[in-house]
C-alpha cells in the first residue's frame, strides 16, 4: 500500500511539475514569424527531431550545430541573412531562436520554438518577450551566465548564442 501511495504521489508530483513548467508559445509582440516547428500546442507533446542548427546568409564558415565553435568575427564582417540557433531539446519542449542580421547588425530575434502546453494563455503572452529581453540584458551586460534563471531562459540564451556564433558575430 505504501509503495502504491508513494507511486501515486510521485505521479501527482510529476503532473504538477509538468503543469507549472508548461509555458505556452506564441508571442503577439514578436514579429509574425513564430512557427510551431512541430510542437503540438495544448497536448504537451515534445518535439524530438534531430538537433540541427541551420543558417542562411553570407557570413563565412557558418555553423549552428549542437557543438558550435565560434570563430572571431573578422574585421569588416558584414554578415547578412538569417541565422538559426541550435534546437535545444528540453524536458517539456524545444527552444530555438533565429536572428536576422543585416550588414553585421541584428535586426530581429525570433523564437521559432518555445515549450507549448495547456497552461493559462495569459502566461503565454508574456514569456517570449521576457525571454528575449532577458537574453538581450545578459548580452548587453557582457554576462557569461545567469544564476537563478530558469532552464527555459538558459536554453533560449544557448540557442541565441549558437545563432550569433553562426553569424560569426
Amino acid at each position: 500500500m505504501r509503495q502504491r501511495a508513494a507511486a501515486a504521489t510521485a505521479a501527482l508530483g510529476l503532473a504538477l511539475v509538468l503543469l507549472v513548467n508548461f509555458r505556452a508559445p506564441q508571442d503577439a509582440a514578436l514579429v509574425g514569424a513564430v512557427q510551431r516547428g512541430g510542437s503540438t500546442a495544448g497536448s504537451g507533446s515534445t518535439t524530438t527531431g534531430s538537433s540541427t542548427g541551420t543558417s542562411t546568409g553570407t557570413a563565412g564558415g557558418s555553423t549552428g550545430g549542437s557543438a558550435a565553435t565560434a570563430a572571431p568575427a573578422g574585421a569588416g564582417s558584414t554578415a547578412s541573412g538569417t541565422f538559426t540557433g541550435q534546437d535545444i531539446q528540453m524536458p517539456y519542449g524545444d527552444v530555438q531562436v533565429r536572428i536576422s542580421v543585416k550588414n553585421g547588425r541584428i535586426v530581429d530575434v525570433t523564437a521559432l520554438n518555445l515549450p507549448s502546453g495547456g497552461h493559462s494563455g495569459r502566461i503565454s503572452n508574456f514569456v517570449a518577450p521576457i525571454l528575449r529581453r532577458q537574453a538581450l540584458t545578459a548580452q548587453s551586460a557582457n554576462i557569461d551566465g545567469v544564476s537563478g534563471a530558469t532552464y527555459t531562459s538558459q536554453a533560449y540564451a544557448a540557442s541565441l548564442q549558437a545563432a550569433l556564433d553562426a553569424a560569426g558575430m
Partner: protein
Amino acid sequence: MTDLHRATAGVDAATRSGPPHRKVHVEPVMGTIVSFDVRPPFVDQAAIEAACEVLHDIDRRFSLYSPDSELGRLARGLVAESELSPDVRWVLAACDELARSTGGAFDARLHRPDGVVDPSGFVKGWAVEEAVCRLDDAGATNCLVTAGGDIVARGEAAPGIAWRIGIRHPEQADRLAAVVAIRRGAVATSGLYERGDHVRDARTDTIPRELLSLTVIGPDLTWADAYATSAFVMGREGLAWVESHPGYGAIGITATREVLWTPTADGRRADGADAPVELSRTSHPDALS
C-alpha cells in the same frame, strides 16, 4: 562577447572585436538542461561526453522518477539504506549533516509529505560539480557549466578576464539584481519564482516569505546549492549563516527589494547590475520565465 544592444543601436560589427573562441554543448539531463561553455584550451567532444555521462549516471541512480533507480527502490522499500552504493549513502549522510547544521531548514527526509527520502535538492549541485571535475581532469581549464540557473566556473572567460555571472532579479526576469565576477567557484540561487512555491520550510510546513531569492557564491556547487536552499528558508539570518562557512558568501533580495551582500559575496561584486530604482518597479506576477 557580442553586444546585442550596441549592435542594434547601430554599431557595425566590423568595429567590434570578435567574440572569444568557445565551444558550446547543451545536454538535457536530470529533468533540466546543462550547458557547457568551454574556452581555450579546448578538449575533444569525448571529454564533454564523458562529463555528461557522469550526469546521466548520477541521474540513473538518484532519480525518484525512475522506480528502478537506487532511490526509487529505497522509496519502494525494496532495498535498505545500508545496501545502497557508497555514493548514495554519502549523499544521504551529507543531507543528514545539513539537516543537523540547519536546524531542519534543509531536510531530505522530512520535506516530502509522503515521507519519501528525497535528496534531489543536494544531488544536482553535487552532480554538476562531479561532471566539471571530469572536464577539469581532461584539461578544460576554462569552462562555465550551467544547470538550470546554478553555475560552476573554472578559469577565465578570456585571458585576464573573470567569468561575469548575473543574478536574476526574482520578480523581473529581464533584470539583473547583481553581477559577480568569479574564476574558480560556484553560484547557486534559490527562490520561489522559478517553479512556484517549491521551497517549503519542513520545520513549520510554511513557505518562506522573508526573502524573494538568495544566492550563494562559494568554492563548490555541492554546498553552494544546498546552502542557498537552506539559507533561503532561514530568511535574513540565512545570509550570516552562509557567511559563517569559510569561502562562502550570500546575496539576498528581500521582500522589500533590498539587495543584501555578505562580505565574501561583496568581494566578488562587479558592475553591470540594474539600478535599484529599476528593480523596485513591480512587474507582472506572471513574468516568471
